[in-house]
């Protein structure tokens, strides 16, 4: 924890020196102090800023690639990556992944269409997640058609093959739900005693269908019986530093990342157990000032280093998204 604070303070000072936009924010909104005596004191920027401003702490010629968010709510976020930043992300993800799933390489069944890997320097957050996680696989099988419907024969064939070995089924939460459960007209079921499901990408769509995490897991186990189902949480603006769900159902911070929960009214730090806006901290972003970002996700911090699962770090839940305020400007007329 102390090392994390030291590292993120160093990083914040670095971005303060290199990125004018970040410096302007720190100077005007945080008394010109880029560092903090605690994580709670560290300056932060709103996630929405990635949609408005090209945030970078490197020269244009050092840009290796640009990561773009899915942009479900209008404009896309742009994350400027240097080669080094990109490599760091991959390394961090690998280390976190191995801690969660073990060191070997296992086959991965990916609930995406092969098309997602098509060429291009700029990549979507979803493509980045697929690329990131699947790079640790011994074999990759894509089981969705281009229209995101499931290719049942491919799925059946590969799950039969992996019946008696360790295999990871990976996909976006909503896609897994819609393909394996909602569209499973043949009511096919699979048994993978050594298999695990890894899913992420948020509950927004499932929440609107009023499906709880518990229901998701139960229904999923009925279709594909696996050893474990693990949710992960992360954002394109801090790729690499993902948070995995523990046995107790909490996300845990790691040496790469941390969180602060802020009161949604006052933005001051919220006490344990009280839901608020999630602020994500990461030591990975070195080419852009994304080391401390206030998100619109609502989460609850439950404690630090004392989760009954035995894992260290702060542990928390993600409870949804900040509801859009009903009262909008005059420019928003319900016709």
């Amino acid at each position: 924890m102390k090392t994390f604070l030291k590292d993120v303070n160093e990083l914040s000072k670095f971005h303060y020196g290199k990125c004018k936009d970040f410096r302007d924010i720190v100077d005007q909104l945080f008394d010109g102090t880029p560092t903090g005596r605690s994580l709670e004191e560290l300056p932060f920027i709103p996630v929405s800023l990635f949609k408005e401003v090209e945030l970078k702490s490197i020269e244009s010629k050092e840009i290796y690639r640009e990561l773009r968010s899915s942009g479900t709510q209008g404009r896309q976020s742009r994350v400027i990556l240097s080669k080094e930043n990109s490599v760091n992300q991959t390394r961090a993800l690998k280390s976190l992944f191995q801690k969660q799933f073990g060191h070997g390489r296992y086959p991965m069944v990916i609930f995406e269409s092969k098309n997602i890997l098509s060429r291009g320097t700029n990549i979507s957050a979803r493509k980045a997640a697929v690329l990131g996680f699947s790079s640790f696989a011994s074999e990759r099988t894509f089981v969705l058609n281009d229209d995101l419907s499931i290719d049942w024969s491919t799925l059946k064939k590969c799950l039969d093959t992996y019946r008696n070995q360790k295999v990871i089924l990976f996909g976006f939460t909503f896609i897994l739900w819609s393909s394996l459960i909602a569209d499973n007209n043949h009511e096919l079921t699979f048994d993978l005693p050594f298999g695990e499901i890894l899913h992420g990408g948020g509950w927004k769509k499932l929440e609107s269908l009023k499906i709880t995490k518990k229901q998701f897991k139960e229904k999923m186990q009925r279709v594909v019986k696996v050893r474990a189902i693990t949710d992960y949480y992360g954002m394109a603006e801090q790729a690499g530093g993902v948070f995995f769900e523990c046995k107790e159902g909490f996300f845990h911070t790691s040496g790469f990342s941390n969180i602060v929960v802020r009161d949604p009214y006052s933005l001051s730090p919220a006490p344990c157990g009280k839901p608020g806006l999630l602020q994500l901290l990461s030591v990975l972003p070195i080419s852009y000032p994304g080391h401390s970002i206030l998100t619109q996700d609502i989460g609850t911090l439950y404690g630090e280093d004392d989760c009954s699962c035995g894992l260290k770090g702060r542990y928390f839940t993600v409870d949804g998204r900040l509801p859009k305020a009903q009262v909008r400007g005059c420019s928003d007329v319900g016709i």
Partner: protein
Amino acid sequence: MLESNDLTEILFGNFETVHISKPVEIFDKSVLEYLSELSSLIRNSTDTRLFPDLLSFAFWCREKNLNLIRQKYENEQNRLGLGTVLHITPRNVPLNFAFSWAFSALAGNSNLVKLPSVQFPQVELLLQLILKLSQSEVGNKILETTVFFRTGHSSKILNKLSASSEARMIWGSDETIKEIKRLSTPIKHVDLTFSSRFSAAVLSCVQFIKADLKMKELIVRRFLQDSLTFGQRGCSSPRVIYWIGELGEYGKSRHDFWRIANNLAPGFLQLPDSFERFSNIALASTQNKHSIELLGSLYNNLITVEKADGHKIDQLFTLGTFLETRIDCLEEIFETLDNKAQTITYFGINPDSLIQWIKKIGFIGVDRVVPFGAAFDMTPTWDGCDTIRALSRVIEVR
């Protein structure tokens, strides 16, 4: 008239009876009676206490106030409503539809009122009371001349209603107004449009300093009520403050003003939208245009942004963030505003001097000059338009 695929929800009245109903004279007795009955009903219902906007609508349409309004039109002879008026109302101000409807009814028209799609509790409550009142004789008559409905974006019904109406009251953004205006209307037809506007406040530093603490608090309270209702997003919410006075007076008065305002603000800001405010202010920080001052710290309730010299008012904030500037002369206000400016609320200055400047310059913009606390007092004259006259015709007789 209605097709099933229009997905239109009729909350009150029916299109057929309105279609055959006839216009009446302005301030027709039945309309006056109806509105004052409605006013009593709202004020006597305990459920309405929770909604200050509903109470202020009731206060507006009480008998005494309607008579005061009517007096202004006493000399009008042979003035009748245009016919049927279609209302497209905004969703940022829940009860805007009620005023739009009442103005047009007072002008002698039948009304087709599209309600905001968002279901606000005070709107539902008002509808319940209107339904209740329709059981009575006075209410039943209004039932024949009024439809309240909700319908989806770009519903075909709006096309048909536009084509069969004599006038439209369109409240909304430039895009909405453009979209509605694209729907064809009869050749002889009136559109009254109420587009997005913003508002400003002006106060005299000397007068503010002179006021005692109690008075200061009252002034600030009125200012916050004007600006923070509807999350500072209403057309009439002041977002810009002009301080008239010398530098020293400015420093002293704004120091006191913001200290009091910051203490009172929590009672006015209720929405969980600090993310949006932070997001806007962080973006503004990177633009380096104006200098941002947090009153105390980021976690405080209000934020001020001092306007840079030589800039027009080109950046508007919401949710308790104010662009402010000091001026020596009222004329300077008009150098920085444009025709989007709707209301100027004032304290400690003579409103006539503002009007004199508007006339002298021939300024296009600023349709209301009202004291602190009155920004949201609706009147049938809105955005510079006398809706009673605009929605009626006068028969010339010789």
